[in-house]
């Protein structure tokens, strides 16, 4: 290889590297932003969501956690998880003996070049075993997910971005997070970074760092346990944007990005919120 070709190759490499974002640099900058806003809050505490940044709300939440409303969902999820399919197999045949695997999700499945959330994986397991898929947002799927989240408690997110296709999905999720939409012209960042900790009517706005650690969640306003895509839809509707379908590529990519931002953080789902 002559010198001209070598220089050209180096230049191409530099240009391509500059165009591609580094997810790890994104994650560190993301964390830094919240550390600067809340210097008194330990990074690990952000797994508790808004209760990490408001002492009085935290006290109320800890009292709620003595008899959490999501407890029934965990029990029912466990029963569903262990009930054999018609073919005699169970979820354990798909996921292994330990249901505590939520810290690895979402994954990027290279074979289909798509982000696979835990809920998608659960329904895929059902379909692979000739069972009908469950509705995405609430009910049995959320209960199985709650049981798996509970079994994962104490483990830390270990989300991988190992290929150009995975990075593209991550970038799409990042773009979604920082894109203004709806008549209110809001991004996810508008509330969860720029106005984090401020009041929105009677609610304090939660930080995005740790947003995915505690799902699914029993919300007082719902009166049941639901998945994070239900909350994504609500956020979109609140800014007057037409929401996307649950488990759409848009929301799966957003979950992939958000979860990567919380990489290394401990899971403590399912959660309860007002």
């Amino acid at each position: 290889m002559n010198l001209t070709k070598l220089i050209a190759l180096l230049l191409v490499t530099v240009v391509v590297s500059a165009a591609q974002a580094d997810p790890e640099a994104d994650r560190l900058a993301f964390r830094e932003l919240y550390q600067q806003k809340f210097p008194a809050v330990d990074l690990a505490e952000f797994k508790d969501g808004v209760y990490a940044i408001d002492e009085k709300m935290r006290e109320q939440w800890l009292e709620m956690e003595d008899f959490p409303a999501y407890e029934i969902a965990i029990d029912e999820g466990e029963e569903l998880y262990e009930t054999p399919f018609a073919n005699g197999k169970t979820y354990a045949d798909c996921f292994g003996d330990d249901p505590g695997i939520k810290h690895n999700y979402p994954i990027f499945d290279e074979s289909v070049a798509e982000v696979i959330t835990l809920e998608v994986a659960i329904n895929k397991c059902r379909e692979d075993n000739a069972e009908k898929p469950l509705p995405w947002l609430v009910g049995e799927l959320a209960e199985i997910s709650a049981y798996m989240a509970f079994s994962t408690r104490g483990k830390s997110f270990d989300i991988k971005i190992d290929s150009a296709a995975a990075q593209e999905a991550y970038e799409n999720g990042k773009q979604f997070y920082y894109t203004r939409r709806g008549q209110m012209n809001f991004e996810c960042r508008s509330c969860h970074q720029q106005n984090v900790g401020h009041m929105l009517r009677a609610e304090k706005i939660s930080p995005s760092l740790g947003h995915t650690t505690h799902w699914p969640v029993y919300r007082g306003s719902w009166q049941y346990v639901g998945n994070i895509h239900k909350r994504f839809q609500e956020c979109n509707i609140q800014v007057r944007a037409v929401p996307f379908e649950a488990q759409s590529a848009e929301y799966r990519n957003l979950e992939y990005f958000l979860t990567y931002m919380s990489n290394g953080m401990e899971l403590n789902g399912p959660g309860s919120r007002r």
Partner: protein
Amino acid sequence: MKKLTLLVLLSLLLMACGNSEQTAKQTNTEPAESKTLTSTDTAESTDIDGLIQQAEDLYAQSLAAKHAWTVNRDLLKDAQRLAQDGDMDQAIANAEEAIKLAKLALIQADAEKDLWQKRVPQ
């Protein structure tokens, strides 16, 4: 005398027929007037149909751009309903507002293609 009586009766009969023809003519005029009114209605209806179609097309474009607004969708539905109910003035107002909002949503979609990158923390 008989001839005279027959002549008078014939005249009366002809007069009666003439009156009845005149009445019939007047009766025909009324539907003609209401036909004119219906034409106006049709013209208004065509206008609102065109506006709703334009609003639907623009809303579909905002959906395809993944930037549709709920308020736009609601206005469009209301415009369709009001047009069906015959409240043309309000239907036109809603359709025009829906068109305006859909155009704004498309401007947002276009602007955000690049702007989002400036908001990523470095």
